């Protein structure tokens, strides 16, 4: 594993994202849409609101904040392999010394960094809004330490999972648009997981948050290995599945 090669892939990908209107549009618009609803909701709740009312509102906020890292990354990740194949840039890359695991890790990190940055930025804006604009009962509920910890820990781990799902689909999809649609659909089951926490159907506690985060981390690492194995240069370049011992290491 060469860190230098991974960094090169990350740098190239980020440069491409920054000049791609579709990617930037998605990354700029979606979070803002997700920001408007919770901001308006929390300002409407008075100090006299009942416990269930506050819990429901805070649940919606938490859910939306965890949806951001699930929804944004697949848009980028799904394009990463099949998009390169479509524009003819994949073959020159595959004839360079880069390994499949390095290439995919670089692409994942490149999708991860802006996605998580945006998700954290949005969450920060919500926290500031709550701190300065929301009623006391809302502040108390939002700044509940296990909830905060879960949000901070799960944001990158969920994003990473969504990215590996997106890249995995991208290595097998016929074209970029199909890959993006499938990736978004494939990320939806994660919403069930986040809903359990957001609406406190599973009561968040510090040990639970750390335990689940470790489980997610293990799943992310496993996903990297699985997706690296799914990556078949022969299929990507020729359209035919490999039938022999793969010379690529």
């Amino acid at each position, binding site marked *: 594993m060469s860190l230098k090669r991974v960094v090169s892939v990350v*740098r190239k990908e980020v440069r491409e994202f920054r000049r791609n209107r579709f990617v930037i549009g998605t990354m700029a618009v979606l979070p803002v849409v997700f920001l408007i609803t919770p*901001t308006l909701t929390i300002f409407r709740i008075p100090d006299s609101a009942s416990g269930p009312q506050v819990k429901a509102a805070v649940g919606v906020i938490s859910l939306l904040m965890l949806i951001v890292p699930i929804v944004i990354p697949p848009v980028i990740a799904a394009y990463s392999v099949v998009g390169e194949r479509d524009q003819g840039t994949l073959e020159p890359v595959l004839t360079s*010394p880069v390994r499949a695991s390095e290439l995919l890790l670089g692409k994942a990190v490149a999708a991860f960094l802006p996605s998580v940055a945006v998700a954290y930025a949005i969450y920060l804006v919500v926290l500031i809004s709550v701190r300065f604009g929301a009623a006391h009962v809302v502040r108390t509920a939002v700044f509940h330490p296990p909830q905060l910890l879960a949000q901070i820990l799960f944001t990158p781990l969920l994003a990473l999972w969504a990215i590996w799902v997106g890249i995995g689909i991208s290595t097998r999809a016929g074209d970029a648009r199909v890959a993006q649609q499938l990736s978004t659909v494939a990320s939806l089951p994660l919403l069930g997981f986040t809903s359990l926490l957001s609406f406190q159907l599973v009561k968040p506690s510090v040990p639970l948050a750390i335990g689940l985060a470790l489980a997610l981390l293990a799943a992310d690492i496993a996903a990297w290995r699985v997706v690296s194995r799914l990556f078949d240069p*022969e299929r990507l370049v020729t359209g035919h599945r*490999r039938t022999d011992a793969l*010379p690529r290491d």
Partner: protein
Amino acid sequence: MDTPWFRRRRVGVGWRPITWQGRLVTVAAVALAVGALTLLHASSARVPIVILIGAVYAVVALATGGARPAKAAAPQDEPTDEEAEIGVGGVEQRRALRALTSGRVSTSLPGEPALVVEHLTKRFGERLAVDDVSFSVAAGEVFGFLGPNGAGKTTTVRMLATLIAPTSGTARVAVLPLDSTSGGETRKRIAVMTENPGLYLRLTVAENLEFFAGLYELAQPRARIVQALAAVNLASRANDPCGSLSKGLRQRVALARALLSDPAIVFLDEPTSGLDPVASREVHELIDGLRERGVTVFLTTHRLEEAERVCDRVAILNTSLRTIGRPDELRDRLFTKSLVVHTGAPLTSPEAVFAVAGVDGWRADDTTSYVLTVSDARTAAPAVTRALVAAGADLLSLAETQHSLEDVYLELIDNDVEAAT
């Protein structure tokens, strides 16, 4: 994005708008922030709203430009498109090529071939793409690989570049066996220029090369990028987005990318496709330069005159290997040598005239034109000339028939087509 709306300040933080769109966004953001502070002066929501406006503005600025002005990796005096297309300064190119290839450690033992291919076969399902191909290429040789569309040229290159696995057969590429353990090391020693340049069109020329310099883990990547661009006469376009270049210039960027890592073997797939004659000549000179520097060049091309001009040996492939050798060898192997004689009037007794040493047979093309089959044109021609003069013939011309590589190619491929039908 063609023109960035914002540009990072050279010093400090923040962006400055550089187009009317950027200025419009800036004015709108300031107006919204001032409006929010004024209208919501009594509300505690004004702070988060202003932060939100600032965040959105930052995202837009970052998205629509945001890069610091690039450090020029090239001279500041930008040439016109025409100047870049035509190319100037062959001396500079040769100097750059020398610099690029000066640090390479030979990957072959003396006398050991750069490429050895033995019984290489590739099937895609039921379709046989490459059938039992064997050949070897000496180190420093320029080897032409010719064949019609679908003949298996690109598939062979892909197998040798470790991109796809052979169905059977073996190969040694830059001394390394083609197996599952040496793929990465093999790819470090070779470079492949694919037919499609495969450039990232949103990135600049220098950024494209920088990416590959990173993949090859090159030391001093900036210097090598400058040298590679100079070698293909593109130094002045380093900071141009690849999307703004013509097809020919993109081809040259791809060539620069192939030279970047100073490979022992360069696979060039149609390197002059889309290039004008002057640019094609520059590429041929570049290939000559690579040969002089001991780089092995594996050239896939449809342009037979190109193969004849630059290749030491050529192979003609049509799923299986049809022939291999030096272009003149192939001509001799495939075509009998002949002399064509034109006279002012019909010969009265051609049988007697052409009954000279070195002439194996003859036929009349028309009443005053004769084709003689000879074993050696150099010895037969003077004897035939003397016999014609002695017979009182009005000799207009006597010439050896010249067969081009194209004749060889067409002869072989036509035979295949006939055999198939």
